């Protein structure tokens, strides 16, 4: 019989009346608590920041309008970070999302100016992103090149491509179709509650990502590849396919981000769009508790991470902190948040 049974047996026979199943049950419960704490992750930090900014800005933070702005601002980064979550879960990284975003936005805007094809700009942008992402994935999965180098290479090369697309100028289209996704809002209760479309899209992306990661076979395979690549291979998982998929998703979502940005700005510029967005996306993912070595993390954490970044940017401007100090404070808050998280997890593990 199992140990547990054995120990139970002896326990009852010996001294303590310690119920046999109890220890295991307690353990499971403790595990579950820890998992919830982990999933909740940075939420306390986020709330703390929000409340802090609300107080310091004389109550300007928690206004419907400002919340709308914050979520809208977080939308593009959320979408990129969702894709990044897939990649980082496999233990990889995608530095090229900013450049892909720029290239996709350019491609979309250029198409949008053709009278007949105009409406196709959205799928074109998303597809452009997907193609670049799949290229990344193919190089990484099939040639077995390190993700950092491949996506650093495409960070540079795709940026060049984005600039070439627009001949190094800003492409502008004030009457771009579906512009509402960039600046409109979905009205739930007329005049009272409305959600910016950008945020609706971001939430949908998070939801679908969650479904894929947690409710599909593919999701388990993604976690498995990140957890132990050779074990995954031995279990017959097509690791190469998983890798191409995650980089493809990251690219596709960068393309979507490009489309969102284009609809928001009515314009795109190969050089001035998406610069160093990859850092924000990675930061959101890591703030959200996803581990760099792969295999551990959740998409909800990423959402919280992206919101923290947006709240920081918005809040610091709201309370009138100068640009220079914004740098300093942002850097310290990021480190502080992770330190706090580490401390919090330790505490919960101890109890």
């Amino acid at each position, binding site marked *: 019989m199992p*140990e547990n049974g054995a120990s139970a047996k*002896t326990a009852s026979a010996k001294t303590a009346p310690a119920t046999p199943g109890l220890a295991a049950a307690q353990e499971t419960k403790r595990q579950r608590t820890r998992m919830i704490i982990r999933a909740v992750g940075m939420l306390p930090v986020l709330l703390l920041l929000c409340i802090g900014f609300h107080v310091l800005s004389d109550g300007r933070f928690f206004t419907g309008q400002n919340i709308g702005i914050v979520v809208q601002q977080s939308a593009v980064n959320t979408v990129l970070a969702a894709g990044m979550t897939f990649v980082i879960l496999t233990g990889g990284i995608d530095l090229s999302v900013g450049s892909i975003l720029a290239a996709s936005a350019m491609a979309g805007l250029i198409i949008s100016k053709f009278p007949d094809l105009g409406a196709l700009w959205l799928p074109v942008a998303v597809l452009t992103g997907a193609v670049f992402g799949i290229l990344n994935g193919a190089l990484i999965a099939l040639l077995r090149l390190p993700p950092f180098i491949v996506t650093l290479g495409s960070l540079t090369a795709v940026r060049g491509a984005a600039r070439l697309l627009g001949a190094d100028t800003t492409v502008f289209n004030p009457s771009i179709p579906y512009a509402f996704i960039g600046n409109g809002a979905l009205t739930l209760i007329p005049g009272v509650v409305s959600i910016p479309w950008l945020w609706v899209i971001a939430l949908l992306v998070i939801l679908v990502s969650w479904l894929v990661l947690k409710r599909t076979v593919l*999701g*388990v395979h993604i976690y498995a590849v990140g957890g132990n690549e050779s074990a995954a291979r*031995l279990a*017959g998982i097509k690791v190469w396919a998983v890798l191409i998929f995650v980089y493809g998703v990251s690219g596709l979502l960068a393309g979507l981000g490009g489309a969102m940005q284009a609809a928001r700005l009515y314009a795109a510029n190969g050089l001035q769009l998406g610069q160093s967005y990859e850092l924000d996306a990675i930061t959101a993912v890591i703030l959200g508790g996803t581990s760099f070595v792969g295999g551990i993390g959740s998409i909800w954490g990423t959402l919280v991470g992206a919101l923290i970044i947006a709240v920081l940017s918005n809040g610091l401007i709201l309370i009138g902190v100068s640009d220079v100090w914004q740098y300093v404070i942002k850097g310290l808050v990021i480190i502080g948040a992770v330190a706090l998280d580490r401390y919090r997890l330790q505490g919960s593990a101890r109890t």
Partner: protein
Amino acid sequence: MSEPILEMRRVSKSFFSIKALRDVDLTVYPGEIHALMGENGAGKSTLMKILSGAYRPDPGSEIRIDGQPVQINGPHGGRAAGIAIIYQELSLAPNLSVAENIYLGREVSRGGLLAREAMQAGVGPILARLGADFTPQTLVANLSMGQRQLVEIARALHARSRILIMDEPTTALSAGESERLFALIRQLRAEGLAIIYISHRMDEVYALGDRVTVLRDGTLVGSLDKGEIRADAIVRMMVGRDVSSFYKKDHDPQARPGAPVLAAVDIGDGRRVKGCSLTVHSGEVVGLAGLIGAGRTELAHLIIGAAPMTSGHVEIEGRTVSIRTPGEALDAGIAYLTEDRKALGLFLDMSCLDNINLAVLGRDAKFGGILDRDKARERAKRAFAGLGIRAANVGVPAGGLSGGNQQKVLLSRLLAIGPKILILDEPTRGVDVGAKSEIYSIIDNLAKAGTAVLVISSDLPEIIGICDRVIVMRAGHIAGQMRRGATPLSQEEIMALATGTEQLDA
């Protein structure tokens, strides 16, 4: 006899310039347990990985199943051919649950969505059959080595195959679990499965094997039928010579009783280890036995400061010492051999030279930090010669060595330190008979020289063979101990203590 279910003919495999297998033949019949033996690095695992589809054989090799030639392309191919395997190197994803690992690569889904509940329910019976004390939802990261081994076994059994390969499945199991596994294996044999069983433990081969095939240096030496299975015959086939006096025990603590060197007093970590006390004397070899998950490894970790202690203290030569890190343990004269040599012991990408010298580099260094490379090379060469480590030279990466040789490299590092106290956690795990006897004689010599040795082992014959005294742990407590006296230690008594059944008898 019935038709063979599996025939491997002229199977060869090269890794770049290295020929791991040369024209090996293997025939297996349904309803038999076929033991595969050979020294470390003989090619047993490689042969099995070819069968499972993890490796592709060199051209010219042939595999037939039920008389039909088959091509096994990748792990899926192996599975499709009805082959299930327990790999020697644990191949689980630690971030996934037990159920997810067992179903990995063949998940159940309904309407595109993962059927988690169905999967968890599906693994319940097999876990119960193995006597696992964890649930399907448990994360593998939270399991001990032994428990992980059970997960591997569960996975292979769950695959419902016709040919079951077990590559050293009991290395992390203790006697109780092993017995349960054997019963299961016999039952599967009765159901008509063909089982290929790899082990370095002779007693297991006696107990289970219907036939034995021996490999040496990648070539087939020959097979023995049930009636011919005898230790000396197998060992001769494996090693090419006789290995006399397996368990070596020349030292005698009774003749010259040493002073207590290591004393753990009522130590615990508040979780797995609850108030354990033990002493080890100089020149004594003490065994620490127990079931998997009894907390032996944790106890050792507490002593060497690898895990935080919440109660009790450690005394060395009568003085209370504070050890908070493994480094401080080394300074205090305690060296520890980990049970998980890949994850916690070796630096696989570093040379054997560096691996052997790592702990004493500082001591040897010139001008407070410059490496003394001659001294290091000298020491490594001495270790190679002394322990019979087989590698081209001391400069090859440790990762390229076979399991047994890796173990000896790790052991060399500890011996280089010249510790007062040596704690060995599963020192012969995955090590072939030749190397095992060498390790036993090293332990014996150390004890003779006055070192206090604590051996944690799940291999009861080993504990009985080399220890002067055995301490048995159960569920985080010291359940009892027994001294080797006029009568040898008995396996039954140890098991009784480990499982607690003696209480019932009393």
